[in-house]
Structure formats: structure tokens, C-alpha cells
């Protein structure tokens, strides 16, 4: 068990390292000169050269990478050339925002997906089932930013129940956070929920066809009880995998949703910093996003192992 954990963590570290090389390599060929952006229009060549040196842009790429990596290991994401502030600190606050958004989005998704999927599977052959799977199909087909715009139009602009965007300020109460969270979480979560519902449905259908479900029925469990006591836990194993992937998708969906709802999370930070060619920051953000995806997968892996004794044994 411990050996397998170590093994997994080593593989994880290797993957992260490889990803960091890819990220650095990709972003160091970005066109646009961060020195120029920092200095604005009409800076002289000498000023630019000095600025580049100050930003460490005149060093060879490998040296720049190693320097960056060295900093990362100590939790130092570098200092932004554009804003002049440490990237790490801002990444932290932005990540918190995005995490809250995604967390609540995922909660919405699960709340939507599990009942929808399970009911669609149990009533598979009846009109209700078709209606439920149909509605999840429609949910998937709507681009999430459009869903966001529509939610804003109805619930913020017309009904004025919730703010049209923005985020709470530190010190504001939970109520403010909640008010700002409802619409984006709905926009993010309902679309993902529809996607997830399909997988829940097919996992439940698969499970319902398994032999041991028949055994459970033969014991005298009603279909609903059999599903509840035996089916769902088994269906959760494949759904978890998909859920992990979905969480990764959501991370990117959050970029869009943050733009729609003007939330200053990691996604809007990414777009801002790309626009200003704040390389160090962009590297940091992309790394954090990729790391989050990998981490989610790792956690899903571990949870699955915990749920499924066969996997526990194999490791």
C-alpha cells in the first residue's frame, strides 16, 4: 500500500515535471515583448534592453526554466514584470475564488446529475426516462457562456434577484458570497450536470444488467433498494473517473464563466495576463490549472482505490 502510494506520487511528480517543461517551452515562444508592454509606447531601444535584462529575458531558455523551477519548488512563482507584484500571492487568492466557483459548480452538477441519471436509467423504457435523458441532452447542447448570459438576463437584469456579476469582498458576509455564487454556479454546474447525468445513466444501466444485481433481487430486495444498497456504489466507480475528467473540463469552463460573470478568478487572470504578455504569471496560471487537473485525477484514483477492494488489492 505504502509502496504503491509512493509509486503513484512519483509518477505524479514525473507528470508534473513533464507538464512544466511543456508549459515553459510553449510560453517562451509567445510573440509580443513583455518589456515593451511594461514600458508602453515609444520606449527607446536602450530602455527596452535594460528592462529585458531586469526581467531576466536575456538569459538562455534553459537557465530561465531552471530558475523558474527552482523558485516553484520554494513556492515562489516569480515577480510579475507587468504589475511588479509577486505572482504567487495573487495566484493564491484567485485560485481560492475559482475553487469556490468550481466546487459549487460541481455541487450543482452532482445534485443535477445523480437523480437525473438514476431516474433516466430506472425509467429507461418509459416516456419519463426518455424525457429525462432528453432534457440532459438539451442541457449539454447549450454553450455554457450562453447559459450564463441567459441566466443574467432573466435573474439579474429582469428579476433582479441576484447580481449580474462580480464577487464578494473579503469582509462581506456569507450572504453576499452566496448571492454572487448562485448564477455562475448554476451556469457552470447545470451544463456539466447534464453531461455527468448521461454517464450516471449509462453506469447505472450497466450496473443494473450485472449478475449480482439479480442476486440482490433474488434476495428479496426491491429494485429501488437493490439499486440503493448495491447499485449506486458500483456505478460510482466508473462515474468517478468521468467526474474527474469533468472537473478538469469545468476548470476550463470556469475561464469562460468567470469572463461572463466578471469574477476575478484564475480564468480571468489567465486572459488578462495573456493580453498583457505577463509571461511569468501566465506560466504560473497554466501550471496551476494543469496541476489541478492532475491532482484531481490523482485524488479520483485514490478514492476509487478506497471504494473498490479489487483495486486496493492490485496495488
Amino acid at each position, binding site marked *: 500500500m505504502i509502496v504503491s502510494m509512493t509509486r503513484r506520487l512519483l509518477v505524479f511528480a514525473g507528470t508534473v515535471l513533464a507538464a512544466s517543461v511543456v508549459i515553459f517551452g510553449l510560453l517562451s515562444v509567445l510573440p509580443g515583448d513583455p518589456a515593451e508592454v511594461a514600458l508602453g509606447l*515609444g520606449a527607446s531601444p536602450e530602455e527596452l534592453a535594460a528592462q529585458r535584462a531586469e526581467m531576466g529575458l536575456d538569459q538562455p531558455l534553459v537557465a530561465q526554466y531552471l530558475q523558474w523551477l527552482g523558485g516553484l519548488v520554494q513556492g515562489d512563482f516569480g515577480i510579475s514584470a507587468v504589475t*511588479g507584484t509577486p505572482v504567487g500571492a495573487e495566484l493564491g487568492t484567485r485560485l481560492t475564488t475559482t475553487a469556490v466557483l468550481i466546487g459549487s459548480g460541481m455541487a450543482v452538477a452532482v445534485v443535477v446529475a445523480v437523480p437525473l441519471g438514476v431516474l433516466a436509467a430506472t425509467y429507461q423504457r418509459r416516456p419519463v426516462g426518455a424525457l429525462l435523458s432528453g432534457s440532459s441532452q438539451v442541457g449539454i447542447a447549450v454553450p455554457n457562456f450562453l447559459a450564463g448570459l441567459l441566466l443574467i438576463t432573466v435573474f439579474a437584469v429582469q428579476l433582479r434577484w441576484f447580481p449580474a456579476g462580480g464577487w464578494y469582498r473579503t469582509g462581506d458576509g456569507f450572504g453576499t458570497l452566496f448571492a454572487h455564487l448562485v448564477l455562475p454556479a448554476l451556469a457552470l454546474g447545470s451544463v456539466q450536470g447534464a453531461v455527468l447525468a448521461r454517464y450516471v445513466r449509462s453506469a447505472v444501466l450497466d450496473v443494473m444488467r450485472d449478475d449480482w444485481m439479480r442476486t440482490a433481487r433474488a434476495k428479496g430486495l426491491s429494485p429501488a433498494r437493490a439499486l440503493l444498497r448495491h447499485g449506486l456504489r458500483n456505478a460510482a466507480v466508473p462515474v468517478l473517473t468521468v467526474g474527474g475528467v469533468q472537473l478538469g473540463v469545468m476548470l476550463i469552463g470556469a475561464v469562460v464563466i468567470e469572463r461572463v460573470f466578471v469574477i476575478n478568478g484564475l480564468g480571468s487572470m489567465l486572459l488578462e495576463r495573456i493580453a498583457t504578455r505577463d509571461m511569468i504569471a501566465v506560466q504560473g496560471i497554466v501550471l496551476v490549472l494543469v496541476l489541478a487537473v492532475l491532482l484531481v485525477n490523482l485524488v479520483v484514483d485514490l478514492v476509487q482505490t478506497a471504494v473498490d477492494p479489487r483495486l486496493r488489492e492490485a496495488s
Partner: protein
Amino acid sequence: GCAAGPPASRSADGEITIALGTSPTNLDFTRSAGVAIPQALLYNVYEGLVKIDDDARVVPLLAESWTAAPDGLSYTFRLREGVRFSDGSPMTADDVAFSFDRLDEWTTASARSLSAIAGTRVLSPREVVVELSEPDNDLLRNLAGPGGAIFTPGAVDELATTAVGTGPYRVEGYTQSFEMRLVAHDDHWAGPPQARRLTLSYYSDPTAQINALLSGSADAVVGLTAPQLLGQLDDDPEFAVTEGTTTGEVVLAMNNATAPFDDERVRRAIRHAVDDDAVREVAADGRGSAITSMVPPTDPWYDDRPDPYPHDPERARELLAEAGQSGTEVGFTVPNLPQYVAAAQVVQSDLTRVGLTVDLRIREFPAVWLDEVFGRKDYQLAIINHAEPRDIGQFSNPDYYFGYRDPVADDLLDQARTGPADEYTGRMRAYAERISDRAAAGFLYLTPWLTAHREDVTGLPVNSTSESIDLTRAARG
């Protein structure tokens, strides 16, 4: 909108939340470019000796009065009494001298507009002399810009995160691309401002700005770039909309230094080909105003002649044929902001009609567009809003991306700047006319300054005449 009852403002009493567009990268306009920093901080937090009022006149601010030497080589300013920085320290002539002497540490363009300043001399705590290396008729206006802001020596080390000025507000907190919180500076020389607190909320998207207003998250939207959004406020008595002028000329820049735009006939053809009114109709929803040169109507040397190059596709085709450029392909480098993309599509459509092939190149703004067009001057056609006041002189800047070479014009400008003050306006007008006549660029329209606010908000600037968004008189109730 058919709103369900009047929107409740989410701001507390005595507070105003203002929705703005792009957010500042930090608080330091001495080292970081971008219009957003001075828009927020100038006049509101930092003050200079003079400022430009809503009618585009230069009026006293920290200076009570001033005199210019007859040779135009020095100005003596008498400072206002009882001025304090927001950190409590008093503002004296030493601070003025300190600030102007520090200009060569700036990396942004505003300092260059004050390059005529040769030195300062402190006569008394309330009197300071500014000496020039050559006469400059633009000095006072330029002093009203960011370059003229007065700093205290005690607070220039961390300009990116702290802003200590003499203005009616001080910065309480700033979260990039989210909001800037300004609170009243109670020691302000003119007494505390009417609004206790201003929150500047930043929205990258105009739709979000208007939605914030409509849903009560903001009390005003200032500097809206998407006029089509205002339609939904029209019949709502809760909101008011004002349209003012700006100093932002939307310019169709042609690279005069390279083919085919080194040929004046081609440039003239372009000006005939493009229907400026259609561009304004589409890009600004018909708002803003027509211009024929890079001068807004608020400037004294406004070129009020009829357009020397009216919309005339036939003539354009002839000119192109003359120049042997019918059917040429031209690259059109456009910033990726909605208003430019909209305008560019109209321009492209017009140019296609006269037989040119236009390759639209949408580039990220600011980073990539600035690098390509401003930095490397690697472009043929480009479009951008020249927002800075009185910036027509850039046509004579040899390093500027226009690539325009015209010794006659250069002379005119030089004489206007350094010549007698009373001939300044006339000479500038001649300069502006020449630039337009030679078709150094296309001048599409003057950006409108659009403000939408809740009915109870007053004191917002109607026009954009300076680099600041002057919120010093904003009030609610």
C-alpha cells in the same frame, strides 16, 4: 428593459459604485503604461498644478495663479495654501520641484510631453519657477496630464501599490481587474468630497458593465464602449444617459513609410473609399461625431471644413488605377476589441468595393497589436483610438508608427509650439489641415463619451477632456 420594479442599489449610503472598462495593471503611472491608471488616479487622488475642466479649459488646481516669462522660457507658479497629502504631510514648493526633477525616472510617455522642462527653482514654500529649454505653448495642458502630478518624496518607493496624493480621495484598496476602493481624503484643501466612498468596479466587457447597472451592482457606467447597449435604458426613468465628447479620434492609420501607402494617391483613394458615417453608424451606433483631421471639436484649431475626401468609391477606384494599385492586397492590423473589429469590418467591406483585397489581422490588444504596429511598425493599415488630448503633433514624430515624412508640416508644428502664443492656434489649424489634405491617415470619427447612471447620481463628468475621469464632484441622493 421591462424591469420588475426599480433596482435597489447595492451600494451603501454615501457610496457610489462606478463601472469602468479595462482595469489598471497597478497604481504606478510613472512606470506602467495604459490609460486606466491615470483615469482612476489623476485629479481624484493625485493633483497637479493645473487641471483641464469638463469644457476642456485649463484651470488652476494646486497653483492659485501663474505667470509666464515673456520669452516663454520660464513659468512661475504660486501654490495654494493649506494643501496636504493624504499621508498628512503638507504640500510645498519642494514637492513640486521634487516631482518635476523626478520626471526623467519615468518610463511612460507622459513624461516625454514635459521634456521641455529644463529645471525647477524654489522661491519660497509657496512659489516655484519652472524653467524650459525651449518655449512650449502646450506646457500648461501637459502639466494637467499625469506628468504634472505632484508626489511627496516620502511615498514614491512603492508607487505600484500605494498612491499618496493631494486629491479629494485616497486609495483604500485595489484588487486588479476587480475594483479600486477610494475613500474621502478629509484634509483635502477644498473640504471633504461629497461622496464618502467611491468604488471603481472594472469590467472587461461592456455588456457586463450595463448589466451591473441594471441589476443594482453599480450606480453608474462611465466610458461605455458599446453604445448599442444603451437602448434598453431609453424608456426607464430610473436611469439617465449622457453623451459627451472625448479627445479620442479613431484613426485609420496608413503606414506612410512603405508601399502602397507611400503613394499619396493611394492614401487619398482610401479616404474616398471609406464611408466614415457608415463606420460610425456601425461601430458607435451612430453616436460620436464626424472629424476630418486628428482634432476634436473641443480644441481651438478644430478643422471644421467639409471633408476634403468625401465618400466617393468611383473616385477611389480612379485614384487606385492611377497609382497602379487596383486589386492590391493590403494587410489591416486591428486590435481585438469589439469597437475596432466592428469598424474594421465596415472599412474592409468598403475597400473591397473599390477593388482592394483586405487581409484582416485581428491582434490581441495591447500586447501583440502594440508590438507589431507601434513597436515594429510592421503593418500597412491599422485602426486605433488616439485618446490622448492634443496629439496631432505625432505626425511629425519621426519615430511614430505613422511613418509620415513632411518637412513643411514639421516646420509648421515647430513654429506653432515655440512661436508667439497668439499665433499658436492659427498655426496648429494650418498644420491639422495639411495633415488631412495630404491624407496622412484616415480620420473615421470621434469617440463618444457615454455615461449611464442612476437618476440620483450627480456630478459625473459629461465629457472626456483629459486623461482623468474626474469624479471629484460625484454625489448621490
